[in-house]
């Protein structure tokens, strides 16, 4: 038994088995959803038991497809952190999904839970991938598994959203990512993730710059402009999907891959000496600012959150591109801190939709009085994302800012400042509107009937909001967990 538990690849198998069970129980909704939660909990416990062995250099090669392409997995802090993040939030999201899917009487719920579990399996594959080839296989699998979730509604909107989603994600990955992987293979003769990188001494300066650019654009899930359109397009999906996948699993898989490539393929030192990331740094800064401005202009709640996500993802890419250990650490931390903040915001969006069918921010006037828990959680998560203490979002921003000062990139520092102001400008008014504005006509029409969304929706969002507060005080262990990756 303990023998079996050493096989951390089971983290991929568990959700796969879960998806099979979901399929098996398709006629028994209660059982089906109980299974989903059960599998999620098992997965979390399973991944959690590897805490402590992340620096022991455990890796398994399952089999080799062809030279260069082998299916191999390893445990390292960054990946374990990502796996823990995704699996823990999967539990909460599953609870939330039950409330949401039933509250909105969605069709094809079995398919929904099935592909949700498959997506988690793919995410686990990305988290534990020991080389670029394995990462790429699961990266593509994740795109394909989430497509049925994005097009869940099966109407014209879903179709066009799905097209953009698939077109950009598959397109960038095949054109840029795959090319970059092949070049890496030809230059370095290996695709393994190795601390310190594998490219040092194998590629000259221009080559390094081109390759880094190919990687960053190729990882379309990181949503660097101009390849960001898929994320707003994915918002046609049911909200639990937007919450877990398009605020956590899928987008974080993107920036996680960015960090992995920077740290384990290039090596932070190599990126610094070759200045490989200069271009990408400015593109990320531009993405951060432009998408914030676009977010300001969006009245659709989920669209605004989507552009906010694009902007926040760029923080992480900037962290990688600054090529300083502290900034990269800040980026990695931001994966966690932003995840909790943003999933709360999406949960709120879903809760509002379930309770009122409102999707536009202008409809929210005075809604806070009817849904106090939802909007309190919203406010908490907003402050965390803006980066104010005592919420956890402040830590990752702190490290990012410190990194930009250390590398003397003062323009980036200023950009961070501007971006924080923009964050306030597009997130805070929603809470203020809900709490302090007089109720609008639409609410009056609804008024007697409005109350909080089902408990299964409200409890998860309160938990994640609380988590942003609690984690503020427990940042030390997370820092120490991740530090070995970046700081020697």
């Amino acid at each position, binding site marked *: 038994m303990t023998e079996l538990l050493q096989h951390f690849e089971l983290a991929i198998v568990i959700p796969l088995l879960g998806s099979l069970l979901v399929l098996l129980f398709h006629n028994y909704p209660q059982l089906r959803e109980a299974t989903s939660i059960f599998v999620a909990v098992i997965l979390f416990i399973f991944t959690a038991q590897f805490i402590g062995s992340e620096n022991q250099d455990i890796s398994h090669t399952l*089999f080799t*497809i*062809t030279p*260069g*392409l082998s299916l191999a997995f390893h445990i390292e802090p960054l990946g374990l952190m990502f796996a823990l993040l995704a699996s823990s939030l999967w539990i909460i999201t599953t609870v939330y999904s039950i409330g949401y899917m039933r509250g909105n009487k969605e069709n094809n719920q079995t398919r929904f839970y099935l592909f949700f579990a498959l997506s988690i399996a793919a995410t686990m594959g990305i988290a534990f991938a020991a080389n670029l*080839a394995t990462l*790429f*296989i699961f990266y*593509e*699998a994740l795109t*394909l598994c989430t497509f*049925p979730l994005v*097009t869940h509604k*099966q109407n014209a909107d*879903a*179709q066009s959203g*799905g*097209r953009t989603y*698939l*077109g950009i994600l*598959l*397109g960038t990955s*095949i*054109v840029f990512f*795959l*090319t970059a992987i*092949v*070049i890496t*293979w*030809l230059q370095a003769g290996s695709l393994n993730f190795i601390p310190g990188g594998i490219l040092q001494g194998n590629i000259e300066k221009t080559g390094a710059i081109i390759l880094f650019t190919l990687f960053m654009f190729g990882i379309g899930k990181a949503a660097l402009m101009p390849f960001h359109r898929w994320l707003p397009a994915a918002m046609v999906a049911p909200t639990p999907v937007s919450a877990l996948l398009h605020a956590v699993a899928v987008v974080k898989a993107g920036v996680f891959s960015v960090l992995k490539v920077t740290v384990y393929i290039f090596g932070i030192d190599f990126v610094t000496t070759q200045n490989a990331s200069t271009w990408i740094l400015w593109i990320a800064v531009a993405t951060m600012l432009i998408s914030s401005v676009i977010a300001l202009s969006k009245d659709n709640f989920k669209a605004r959150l989507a552009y906010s996500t694009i902007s926040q993802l760029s923080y992480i890419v900037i962290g990688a591109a600054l090529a300083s250990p502290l900034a990269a650490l800040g980026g990695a931390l931001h994966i966690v801190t932003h995840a909790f903040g943003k999933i709360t915001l999406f949960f709120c969006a879903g809760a509002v939709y379930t309770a009122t069918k409102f999707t536009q921010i202008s409809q929210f006037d005075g809604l806070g009085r009817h849904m106090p828990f939802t909007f309190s959680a919203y406010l908490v998560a907003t402050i965390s994302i803006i980066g104010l203490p005592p919420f956890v979002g402040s830590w990752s921003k702190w490290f990012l800012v410190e990194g930009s000062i250390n590398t003397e990139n003062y323009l980036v520092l200023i950009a961070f400042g501007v971006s924080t102001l923009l964050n306030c400008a597009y997130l805070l008014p929603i809470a203020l509107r809900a709490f302090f504005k007089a109720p609008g006509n639409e609410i009056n029409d609804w008024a007697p009937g409005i109350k909080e969304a089902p408990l299964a929706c409200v409890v998860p969002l309160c938990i994640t909001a609380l988590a942003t507060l609690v984690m503020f005080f427990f940042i030390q262990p997370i820092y120490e967990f991740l530090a070995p990756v970046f700081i020697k």
Partner: protein
Amino acid sequence: MLSQHLAVLQVVVPLICAPLCALLPLAKPGNKLGNNLAWLLATLVSLTTFIIALLLTKEVSLHGVISYQLGGWAPPWGIEYRIDHLSVYVLLIVSAIASITMLAARKSVEQEIAHEKISLFYSAFLLCLTGLLGIVATGDAFNIFVFLEISSLSSYALIALGNNRKALTASYQYLIMGTIGATFILIGVGLLYMLTGTLNIVDLQARVPELLSSRTLHAAFAFFTVGISLKLALLPLHLWLPNAYAYAPSMITVFLSATATKVSLYVLFRFFFGLFSNEITFEEFQLDKILLPLSILAILIASSVAIFQDNIKRMLAYSSVAQIGYMTLGISLATKSGSIAGMLHLFNHALIKGGLFLAMACIVLRTGSVQLKNFAGLGKRMPWTMAAILLLGLGLIGVPSTAGFISKWYLLIAALEQNNWLAAAVIVGGSLLAIIYIWKIVEYAYLKSPTRQSDKYFNERIEAPLQMLIPLWLLVAANFYFGLKTSFSYGFAETAINNLFL
């Protein structure tokens, strides 16, 4: 005792059984046994050829090249059947696809072919199989022409059996272009014979290098290039292919798409690297200079045209033209790794495209049409068939863990080794176009509900019979097996090319 004659049995078995098939009692409506007899024979013969090909594979991988002297006449005077790694690789594909086609064929053929022609249909099929196997087995240049014509003539007849009257014009067009192609090859063979006095390919290879200054040799090479390109449907000589594939009986499309152009590609390998040599082909005649731009155009143009097709069989046919472009692109990189990648794609594409056309046969059987709008709602109505189309489509796009990905991976490596960024860009760009046309089908099948006008059953489940689904899913499984395990598909291609190249 028999095992010594495997090389010739590979060709003779289907050749003898073809007329037998025609002699079987004519099928009549209601006469079950009579209807199935011809099918049974053709299936058994196809399976036998597959087994022989497997035995030959074992033999070749253990003992190397098999040389069989027909009638005991020693080469270079007599006709030699010569089986090496390259030959068995293609023999295996052809016979495997023939077996799968035949296993699935019964119901589809009963529906699409007039009763009195069924046994003739199977007879022509076996002749076509004979021709294709013969091309690969023989080591004699003139013999290749003869077998080429056997396979072509029977495929013209088979295509003309399609239900739509356009099948007739398609077949006629193919006949004209195919005959011109074959005649060009014949001229090439004649010119070479004029120069050397031999027709044996091994013998020819030994003599060709002394004759490099001869203009006749140049002319022969040029005739070969054009003739093979016609047979191969290399853009811009592909005009016969889309209609022929679109209007042929469903099962014939399955077979031809996965074998006919592949065997033509084999002829290209055999002539340009076996008869001439890679040095002569690339350095003296600079084939790569013309093949590269044509391949690039084939990939880009044919994929783009495929996007705008509403008849899915024709869409897949254009996709085939594009995929042939990938294979020739590999060859035109003028390196070993390029040719290996081209060879590998030949193998993988046969599985993928054979499977896709087989799925089309299922859809024709159940709905009678492969027009795009007819696909609306098929995801629910024919779930297994559509799932197969989706998975094979992913292979065509080149999603990792499918066979198609392995091809793209090696093609990309070969292109980037040469720092040929244009070729690399085209390889990945072609995949993007493939996403578009495959996803058109997927969207219709899964995201649209059936329109009343497009069909009479509307919501009923109309899954294809198991007899067709099992062969179809065998191909799907192969698509993933060879995407995860490449020791045979890549290993054999590598040995074949290594032996072929100087």
